[in-house]
């Protein structure tokens, strides 16, 4: 059985169904790049896995433990971390406060080790998150997730609006997480980053995963990429 096993997950907002039965499996230490056009349901899938959008039906099991329908704090304590789209850092808290708030679960990742990985944050730890650049805020969102010592990390477009050098740094962090045995689900518009870090690529369309292949195979099939994503 896979570490993360999602079966027939249905979810949406109010009376609008966005996910129409998603099936997904992910092993420890694996990174899956999740691609799709706008409105395909990628972010809704992430929010549903995190418990921020309640599922209508279906199952989400992490290491055999059922998480579907549980509260976000319960899911987080089970080892799931979210790096949300748009960073969503707390503007009124300092970097140090962010790191302290996130460091509640003991494990491999500590404040020192995270600052070793993202030294820029160490220089900014006395500053409010609102005073950081977009790239620094993204690093802070990643650091916040790492400090929960997660077993599964959900990243929702972490490269959005970042300079190429920072995208590379995000990629390096994801690779480090994988090496530590963390499973990563990466929602991305930036194909370069997804191709760089993901072992497999899945494509969502109309609330379901319609295509999933190893990354190398996906790169060798531009026709499918064009058909599903509209890219050349």
């Amino acid at each position, binding site marked *: 059985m896979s570490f993360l096993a999602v079966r027939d997950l249905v979810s949406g907002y109010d009376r609008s169904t966005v996910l129409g039965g998603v099936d997904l499996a992910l092993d420890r230490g694996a990174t899956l790049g999740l691609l799709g056009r706008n409105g395909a349901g990628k972010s809704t899938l992430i929010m549903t896995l995190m418990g921020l959008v309640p599922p209508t039906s279906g199952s989400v099991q992490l290491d055999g433990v059922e998480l579907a329908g549980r509260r976000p704090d319960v899911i987080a304590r089970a080892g799931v971390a979210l790096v949300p789209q748009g960073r969503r850092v707390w503007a*009124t808290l300092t*970097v140090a406060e962010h790191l302290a708030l996130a460091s509640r679960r003991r494990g491999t990742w*500590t404040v*020192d080790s995270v600052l070793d*990985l993202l030294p820029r944050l160490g220089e900014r730890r006395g500053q409010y998150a*609102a005073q950081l650049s977009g790239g620094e805020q993204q690093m802070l969102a990643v650091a*916040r997730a790492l400090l929960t010592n997660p077993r599964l990390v959900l990243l929702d477009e972490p490269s959005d609006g970042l300079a190429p050098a920072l995208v590379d740094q995000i990629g390096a962090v994801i*690779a*480090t997480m994988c090496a530590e045995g963390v499973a990563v689900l990466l929602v991305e518009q930036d194909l370069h980053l997804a191709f760089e870090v993901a072992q497999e690529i899945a494509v969502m369309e109309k609330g379901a995963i319609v295509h999933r292949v190893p990354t190398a195979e996906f790169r060798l099939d531009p026709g499918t990429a064009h058909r599903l994503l509209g890219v050349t």
Partner: protein
Amino acid sequence: MTAVRAPTAPGGVPAPVTRVARGRAGIVAVAVLVVLAAAPLFLAPFATTTLTRILVFALFAVSLDLLVGVTGLPSLGHAGYFGAGAYAAGWVSINVTAEAPVPLLAGLAVGAVAAAATGWVTVRSQGVFFLMLTLAIGETLQQVADSWESVTGGANGLTGVPAVRLAGAPLANIGFLYWYVLVFGVVGFAAVALVARSPFGAALRGIRDNEPRMRALGYSTSLYKYAVFVVAGGVAGLAGSLLVAQQRLVSPADLGFTTASFALLAVIIGGAGSLWGACLGAALVIVIRDALDLGGNGTLVLGIVFVLVVYLLPRGVAGLLPRGGRVSAPRRRRASAPPWRKGST
């Protein structure tokens, strides 16, 4: 791709370094305390009494600010816990002992217990529902005070409260009473400031700014909100016990909507999230309401001040100065979003 190292070293992160700012704030705080401590030596009795009322109301406003400014829970029923503490302290003073710190502890405990009994329902609601629930609870407590005549004295209030005693001696002198209120008011303020600046306080600010994100980080936010609701209720109860020490009378009006709204007014005028701002706001409210001879138009003037503050100083009086003592948003954000308004999710 950039090479990175796997995590190795354990440890924590040092607190942000703002020693100069803290040093300045400390000097100002000491200077203010010295002036306040010396005030009865050069003020007329009426002015000393007014200052005593300001200190009491300031502690009450600070306890409300812990909810409104720090946690983002705008309450309209906080006077219920203030009044409950006042009744408890008054009743204990009449029927048990007026020896300090018994009335203080009674006020604090009853304020906290009343908040604990009603808070679990309220903190699970949000926005206007929280506002209306707290309003309903405040009104209910006022009705209880109004109708439970054998204990509260009913509509006449609890009268005949003896002067608080310290080491057996009654504090009948206005100046001694002022110092008594000042000492315990400062203790209450310091306790709230410690809570606001602690890791617990940082979590409260995280809840205020983006509660779903705090939950996604593993925080059971309802528990945090409940805990701060009880703490704020306890501090309001402590302020209530100081109120009864000063006026030696409690009436149902002390638990009512008007008292609660004046406190909210003080918090917003002072700058929600700034504890010392709440004290300034409380001073303004008490001076306009009680001390100035405005021909019965004090409330009208307060309303005008409130409208002016909302339009001209959206971050309150505290927004006029740099960060000192503020536990809310940095300057860039504050300009458009006062902390008592919820952030995006």
